[in-house]
């Protein structure tokens, strides 16, 4: 099936939660809603599910207007951040419950439950009660229950947020494969850019109830059309410098001048904002086309495989990503080098003016 949101808005009381969102979801596709807390992810999912009715706009499923159709008459399944299972039912019965409600019986029920359990690696646990499971196993049970229905639309609202990071890492890796096999349209809400990248498919960046950009995940990441989209899709946060281009030079902030190299070279004179992610900078040798800033380390955050080094400069604090475990100490003087071919340039309205070609 296909699913389309056509200029959907949702207002409650004085507050506008969703502003004029249009999305077209392809059959069997993975769609990520990426945005910070309160950007409208859950509200949008409730509208798609039919739990709430949009204030204006339409929902179209398979060419049919389903805007006012309530959730129980739609082919939709939802997985929430909290693991929701029936505590008194075994894993088998938890997975079977939506089928029993739908009147599926006997051989058909058994084979579908076992099929979903196999996909999610729950076969050895079918006789257990939820309380006897780990968090990851409980959430896998909830996901099995969502896919066993064979709903046309499966909505997952930050399903991994409550798990330990190792489990999250492993399920993130497994989920796209598992979910793809279901053939449903998948909508997956997350606050975390790395999760969106790992899930692949298409991503909509959400900010203040608006879908800023919707497209293939990798191109939304590498070519954000608007600075808000780049901000939503950057972790650690996007580094930003306001600049003024004048001939062969740029003024960085109010104090510094630098030659217009890299993507800055071809830019018409005017005011812009440069955005760069932590991996477009280093603390070692200058790049071939380099913007260099003197600074001081304020802290190095270590994620295990990468270090996020915060550098205080006259233009503000920037975060640089270094591979492995950084041994840099707070207070150390460093030169921050920014690869001028790997920056994003936005005009004063926030629209993208230049970015490096996608690889």
């Amino acid at each position, binding site marked *: 099936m296909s699913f389309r949101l056509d200029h959907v808005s949702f207002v409650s009381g004085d507050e506008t939660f969703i502003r004029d969102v249009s999305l077209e979801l392809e059959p069997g596709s993975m769609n990520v809603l990426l945005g*910070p807390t309160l950007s409208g992810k859950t509200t949008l999912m409730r509208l798609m599910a039919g739990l709430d009715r949009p204030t204006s706009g339409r929902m179209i499923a398979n060419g049919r207007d389903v805007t006012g159709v309530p959730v129980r008459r739609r082919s939709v399944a939802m997985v929430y951040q909290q693991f929701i299972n029936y505590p008194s039912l075994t894993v088998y019965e938890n997975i079977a419950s939506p089928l029993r409600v739908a009147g599926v019986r006997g051989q058909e029920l058994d084979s579908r439950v076992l099929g979903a359990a196999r996909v999610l690696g729950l076969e050895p646990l079918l006789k257990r009660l939820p309380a006897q499971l780990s968090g990851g196993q409980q959430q896998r049970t909830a996901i099995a229950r969502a896919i066993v229905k064979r709903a046309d639309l499966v909505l997952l609202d930050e399903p991994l947020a409550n798990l330990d*990071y*190792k489990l999250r890492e492993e399920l993130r890796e497994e989920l796209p494969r598992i979910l793809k096999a279901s053939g449903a349209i998948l909508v997956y809400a997350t606050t975390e850019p790395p999760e969106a990248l790992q899930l692949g498919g298409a991503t909509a960046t959400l900010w203040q109830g608006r879908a800023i950009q919707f497209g293939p995940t990798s191109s939304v990441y590498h070519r954000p059309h608007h600075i808000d989209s780049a901000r939503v899709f950057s972790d650690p946060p996007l580094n930003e410098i306001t600049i003024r281009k004048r001939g062969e030079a740029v003024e960085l902030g109010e104090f510094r001048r630098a030659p217009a190299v890299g993507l800055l070279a071809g830019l018409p004179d005017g005011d812009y904002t440069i955005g760069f992610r932590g991996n477009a900078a280093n603390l070692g040798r200058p790049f071939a086309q380099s913007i260099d800033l003197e600074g001081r380390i304020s*802290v190095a955050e270590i994620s295990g*495989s990468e270090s996020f080094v915060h550098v205080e400069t006259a233009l503000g604090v920037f975060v640089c990503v270094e591979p492995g*475990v950084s041994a840099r100490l*707070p207070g150390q003087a460093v030169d921050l080098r920014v690869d001028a071919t790997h920056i994003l340039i936005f005009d004063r309205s926030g629209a993208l003016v230049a970015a490096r070609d996608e690889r």
Partner: protein
Amino acid sequence: MARITLDHVAHSYLRGAGASADYALKPIDHVWRQGRAYALLGPSGCGKTTLLNIISGLVIPSEGRLLFDDRDVTRLRTEQRNIAQVFQFPVIYDTMTVAENLAFPLRNRGVDRAAVKARVAEIAELLDLTKVLDRPARGLTADAKQKISLGRGLVRPDVAAVLFDEPLTVIDPALKWELRSKLKAVHRALDVLMIYVTHDQIEALTFADEVVVMKDGRVLQIASPAELFERPEHTFVGYFIGSPGMNFVEAEVDGARARVAGQTLTLAGRYARPPAGSSVRLGFRPDHATLGAAGDLSVSVEKIEDLGRRRLARVRLGQQRIFATVPDEVSFDGDAARLTINPERLYVYVDDERRPAEAA
């Protein structure tokens, strides 16, 4: 100010425990040094909270001694130990102002007014609480309240240690950034021993000078963050630290050669042949394994993920699945590829423990 010594400390919640599996904390000998920052890191049930509770006095260990400097405190109550604690959830007085909350642990011990005022100002500055000092704690956000709890834990300059039990649990994810870095800065500003329990590797590695990695009641490795990443002494450490964790592949090792999935790999050092029946695996990080047209081992590529900052491939080496880094300039037709592993970052694990190479 103190040094804390664990002298063969172990704990079982069962009476008359015998078997090793009965112990929530297996015997540990360790010295926590004055002024250092330590993290206890491991999955739930690993014994990290038991260990913290032994240091705080909530649990009296069934075996061993606990020394603060040279004084045996094993059986002393918490309040006799001169420690400060910060818990998962804010512990503050809602009716007091932020300043009064911060001052409370000092006033309680009869510190004079001027000294209290100066210390409260210093701690508030470190935690960015200066602006809200005169506001009542009631009505502040959960994040702000937890910051006050942190401040209360840090305000006494004379404590033997400050103990943190998953202190960022209630903090909004967007603010964890800020607080993680803040805690590191605070530790550098205050010369006090800090011990921090968490299951989150970013918190542990960012905060600590040394991380204690635990599993099933056992300490697997105590080392600096760099050491844990570069040279894990146990397969679990390799798996648990890093995202994704270390790759492990079954191998036969003899001298300077390893046989992996029917292929031969040359090792950087020589290794004695492991005893028959032991599990022998090679461990290497995805960060130290690169995919290309040439290389040591033949693999088949299942999937390449663009993770934004880098590309990661899931590949099959014989029947074993591993992760490898895909350099920017490399592209593929079909699924056949070669894998190069940095020999200096390739380790041999026998029954899960790292086996050092023989001296040359």
